[in-house]
């Protein structure tokens, strides 16, 4: 608002005289006492400011010991876990085969004392027959023929046969 607008508002007839009278009356009779102990006021205020500055200076230190240290501690722990896993845990001798894809085929056997499991891998062009329960493998079976004692496992039609003891 510009000064002449101030005056225009003050000079509204309703307010004119009464407002001026009230204003001068208040200025005359409504004076606040002076600030008591002004020097102590400044002293106390400066002390509070100094305390505030000390608090502000401490804040970055606290921050450093919170988030960054947590992050470093977390990273260190993960590194230790990786080291322990890499060096202390022994690797399985079959771990290289873990990734190969094998298909379990259906097998049938007459003798209930013998269990058989058949694996076939297309990638390696390999079929494995796993037999459990036989005390010994007949000699002519390894040559591709039928077993002599004919206990029921039929091995005909396989290109390759290997006994896996699984020990």
């Amino acid at each position: 608002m510009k000064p002449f607008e101030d005056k225009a508002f003050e000079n509204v007839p309703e307010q004119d005289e009464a407002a001026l009278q009230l204003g001068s009356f208040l200025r005359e009779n409504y004076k606040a006492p002076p600030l008591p102990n002004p020097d102590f006021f400044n002293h106390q205020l400066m002390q509070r400011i100094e305390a505030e500055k000390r608090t502000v200076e401490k804040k970055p230190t606290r921050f450093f010991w919170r988030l960054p240290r947590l992050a470093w501690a977390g990273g260190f722990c993960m590194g230790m876990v990786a080291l322990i896993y890499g060096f202390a845990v022994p690797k399985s001798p079959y771990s290289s085969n873990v990734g190969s894809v094998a298909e379990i085929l259906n097998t049938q056997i007459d003798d209930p004392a013998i269990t058989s499991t058949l694996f076939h891998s297309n990638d390696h062009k390999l079929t494995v027959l796993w037999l459990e329960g036989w005390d010994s493998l007949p000699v002519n079976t390894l040559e591709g023929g039928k077993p002599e004692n004919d206990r029921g496992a039929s091995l005909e039609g396989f290109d390759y046969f290997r006994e896996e003891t699984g020990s």
Partner: protein
Amino acid sequence: MVEDRRIREAADMELVSRCQRGDTQAFNELVNQYRGKVYAMIYNMIHNEQDAWDLTQDGFLKAWKSMGRFQGQSAFYTWLYRIVMNSTIDWMRQRKIAGEGEFDEECSLGQVDARATTVPHSDPLPFQKMERDEIRKRIDAAVDQLSPEHRAVIVMREMDGMPYDEIAAVLDCSTGTVMSRLFYARKKLQSALRDLYEAI
């Protein structure tokens, strides 16, 4: 007058820039310059010496903390008054001092002029003092009828003589709102005090 104001504002800005670099001595100078005005303004709004002291302290402390955010878009004292007025109005709201008939009995504690005890030769005569105290009580009671915002406008305009645009900047409202509040506050005070000031 305008030139004086510009010189004062320029000096304030120099002190402010030193404060922003962490110079507490510069802030001490600003406090020396404005503590009396700020205290008087708060005292006239709440009528209690101790609370006015505390609110003045808090206002200056807030100003120090916010000094880094002061861009110089307004005069320093306008910015300082804004901080102080907001604190005082919030304080009054928390105390549920909302005007319209409420009367704070603590007001009577601050009636005695502090200079009276230290400068005996300027003491008014007993009947003059009684009369002055009586007038002060009547004014306090009338001002207590006003809301915090209306008190702020009347104190800044009538006691401090601030122009409307500065009052609007301090209270963060339009000049129209300032005029409206001033009109309403004057009406209230006139109806409460007319017999006094017409008799005088």
